[in-house]
């Protein structure tokens, strides 16, 4: 499933559509503590988290995750939003909790 496919499901609000919407999402990763995310982040995963700041974007880049999905109504702060826009990162969001959001993405990957 590509990032564009995930957007097209309409399940998530698009905070910022990144530069490469054809990128394949191959897995889902859930965690909020950035040091753990840094060591355990999964390449090409959609990362479901409540941490919406510029550091989240740095960790996403360093671990080669595909996109960020902010759950539980979390929002990207202003600095993070500007960074996502200038660097072309995809950030989505939802009011739903982390688990059903991640489960949905996982189901879509394996559909």
């Amino acid at each position, binding site marked *: 499933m590509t990032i564009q496919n995930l957007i097209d499901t309409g399940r998530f609000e698009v905070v910022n559509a990144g530069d490469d919407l054809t990128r394949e999402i191959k897995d889902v990763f859930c965690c909020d*503590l*950035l*040091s753990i*995310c*840094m*060591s355990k982040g999964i390449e090409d995963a959609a990362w479901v988290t409540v*941490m919406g*700041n510029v550091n989240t*974007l740095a960790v996403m*880049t360093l671990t080669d995750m595909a996109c960020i999905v902010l759950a539980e109504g979390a929002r990207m702060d202003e600095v993070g939003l500007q960074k996502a826009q200038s660097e072309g990162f995809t950030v989505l969001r939802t009011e739903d909790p982390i688990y059903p959001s991640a489960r949905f993405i996982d189901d879509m990957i394996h559909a």
Partner: protein
Amino acid sequence: MSDSLEFKYQIDGEDFARVGHASTDVKKKLKMMGLPPDVIRRVSIAIYEGEINMVIHAYGGEITVTISEGDVKMVLADKGPGIPDIEKAMTAGYSTASESVRNLGFGAGMGLPNMKKYTDSIEIETELGVGTTVTMHVKF
């Protein structure tokens, strides 16, 4: 690669918006140089954790990355307060980070443990009130 390449980065203290600048740049450079993905990931993690530590605890500092045949050397030097108990600081889960820092998603007590885990060697020189220098190597 016969000659070594050196890159230096100044890290600003308390500037969380810039954390990741050095590690992201090093990652790009190592990618361009064609180093193995696993080496790039390990170096990125080690430098990123170092950057965070320097911002949280040490009012910033300087990172020097030297890439030579089969080795990435990272030297992270700060003029912070020093580490009173290195053994404790190396314990996973132990953290002295403030509540505000934890609210940003840091302070899990994984910084130095991650740096040790993902590098082939780590050496910490620290003096209270003077500063800390962490030297790490990743071999490839």
